[in-house]
């Protein structure tokens, strides 16, 4: 009798497995946690040198348990970087600009993941909807099921305390929240006090979001774009004045603590091994005094094409897939995240009706190949090509060491970043071969814009691309 039951069970087993796959295919896909700090330079992170001596054990742990990239590249400023991250396209293609954001025609990572059954959320800073975002270009209009945070950027926190501020003429900025299908609503005024706590609140909401979806066995895409350490770099009361390393040091302790909240939740919820965690920063170090950040070994700050503006820390972890303890100087760009996440979730979700600049870096991250799938990157300022990186070489079409500082001759400069990481000695005159190689990379990019014209910066919705 017992053996009959066992036989029946064995016979039924394939059907049970098939049934389970059919009913719960979504749970088999990995969760994605993307944490994106703001104006946080290379020199602030422990595993990248921590010039202020403030430990960042949680951020470091991601890299130690996965890979720490030392040649990770981003766009040079907030909005364009977020556009590139979300779309897998250089921002020049999407026409991303602070006043207008990006069109709804752009396909974002959460938009691509939703049809696979992913729950999607943003808690933190959006900055892709433009000034007139409300009801038009909110995160919930771009693939997020829910959001909490600021639609624009952190320095708005200073508005209400600006000398001569008149609330009857200029409404105060707010922290908002919203769910897809409904309007966003104001949570509280975004001022110097709420600026200190917004990242903590966003981390708590992140944890609650993960808990909810783990309970529902639903895969999730959590986008946690922290507002630190963008100016004004004013920190949570738990850390203000605690590190002895100034506002930025305190903010780094806060950033790392909040990252720890997310990591601890993943462990507590038992989904650590099935979650791809990416932590990086949007652009180089904050430059505005008194919150002058550190670019570590690099020269320059955000809003410049110097390495200090476009090379940022990046750590990635996916237990069982990305071998632990890797450190790599292979070139990776933030536009690669979209195709890489697509590969990680095992779905062909990268749009094919437009130019995509990102490449799938998963085989490299998984150590299935020694080199990354990228050997060059373009750096635009608005519509102007400013620099190209190719292998170890970097060619500036217009050398500007810091925004606002007029470019001095020679305007074009070539550096080998291995032998001259600070970009100090122009060697283009002794390497005449380089210009042709760099020009070809730019020309190849421009060729793609013939088939897929760039979206104009002020394009309204609905945007319709010209016929191919």
């Amino acid at each position: 009798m017992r053996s009959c039951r066992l036989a029946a069970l064995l016979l039924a087993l394939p059907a049970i497995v098939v049934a389970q796959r059919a009913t719960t295919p979504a749970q088999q896909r990995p969760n994605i946690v993307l944490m994106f700090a703001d104006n946080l330079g290379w020199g602030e992170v422990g595993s990248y040198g921590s010039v202020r001596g403030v430990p960042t054990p949680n951020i470091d742990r991601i890299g130690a348990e996965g890979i720490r990239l030392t040649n990770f590249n981003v766009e040079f400023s907030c909005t364009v970087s977020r556009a590139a991250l979300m779309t897998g396209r250089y921002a020049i293609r999407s026409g991303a600009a602070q006043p207008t954001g990006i069109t709804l025609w752009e396909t974002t990572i959460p938009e691509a993941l939703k049809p696979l059954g992913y729950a999607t959320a943003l808690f933190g800073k959006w900055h892709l909807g433009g000034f007139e975002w409300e009801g038009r270009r909110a995160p919930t209009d771009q693939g997020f099921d829910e959001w909490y945070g600021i639609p624009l950027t952190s320095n708005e926190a200073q508005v209400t305390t600006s000398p001569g501020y008149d609330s009857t003429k200029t409404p105060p900025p707010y922290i908002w929240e919203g769910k897809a299908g409904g309007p966003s609503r104001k949570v509280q005024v975004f001022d110097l006090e709420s600026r200190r706590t917004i990242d903590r609140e966003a981390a708590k909401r992140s944890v609650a979001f993960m808990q909810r979806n783990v309970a529902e066995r639903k895969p999730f895409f959590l986008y946690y774009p922290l507002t630190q350490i963008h100016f004004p770099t004013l920190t949570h009361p738990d850390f203000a004045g605690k590190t002895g390393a100034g506002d930025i040091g305190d903010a780094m302790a806060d950033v790392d603590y909040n990252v720890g909240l997310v990591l601890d939740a993943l462990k507590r919820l038992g989904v650590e091994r099935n979650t791809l965690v990416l932590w990086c920063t949007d652009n180089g170090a904050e430059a505005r005094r008194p919150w002058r950040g550190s670019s570590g070994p690099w020269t320059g700050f955000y809003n410049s094409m110097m390495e200090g503006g476009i090379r940022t820390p990046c750590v990635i972890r996916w237990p069982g897939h990305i071998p632990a303890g890797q450190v790599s100087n292979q070139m990776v760009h933030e536009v690669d995240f979209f195709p890489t996440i697509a590969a990680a979730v095992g779905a062909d979700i990268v749009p094919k009706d437009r130019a995509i600049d990102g490449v799938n870096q998963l085989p490299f991250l998984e150590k299935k190949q020694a080199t990354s799938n990228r050997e060059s990157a373009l750096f635009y300022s608005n519509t102007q090509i400013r620099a190209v990186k190719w292998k170890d070489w970097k060619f500036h079409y217009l050398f500007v060491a810091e925004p606002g500082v007029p470019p001095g001759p020679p305007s074009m400069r070539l550096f080998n970043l291995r032998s001259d990481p600070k970009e100090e000695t122009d060697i283009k005159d002794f390497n005449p071969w380089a210009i042709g190689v760099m020009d070809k990379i730019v020309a190849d990019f421009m060729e793609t814009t013939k088939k897929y014209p760039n979206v104009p910066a002020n394009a309204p919705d609905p945007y319709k691309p010209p016929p191919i």
Partner: protein
Amino acid sequence: MRHHTTVSSALLVILLAAGASGQARPDFSGRWTIAPPPGAPAGRGASGGGRAGDMGSGWGSTITLTQSASALTLEWAYYSTSDLQPPLVFVYPLDGTERTHTLMMGRGLEKQVSRTTWDGAKLVISTSQDFPNIVAGKTITSVVTRTLMLESPTSLVVETNRSAVLGGQASTTRTVYTKQ
């Protein structure tokens, strides 16, 4: 009469040759510096794939040329005074013979092999240089051709053509130096 015609023709050829020679052998001597175009601040106006900058001649913004009957000597202060390095000096024979210059720019000794030709009033300096391991295991040869011409006694134009390598593009830049 026929003899007279022949002599006249020969004389004409000589005179024309002398004239051509006089035109073809301008003296580039002087201290020259790049003058930025008036009212054109760098970094404005370029868009799309447009470039904002300028590659220059490959010789820096200030050069000193000394020309004799047999050679053109280029002196170029690449290093700053505090570097305690002398200016770079390149001597280009004007009889078309090859000249090799060796310099150290941080990736081993580099050899530049140059040869000059006259093209009317223009002096063409062609320089070939090998670059090992720009791509692992490969040596690429880059050829830079500079054409020097005087627009006026105080205006020197250097057109610099850089050959295409590694599937890239050839490029030409035009640099105008003003006599100091």
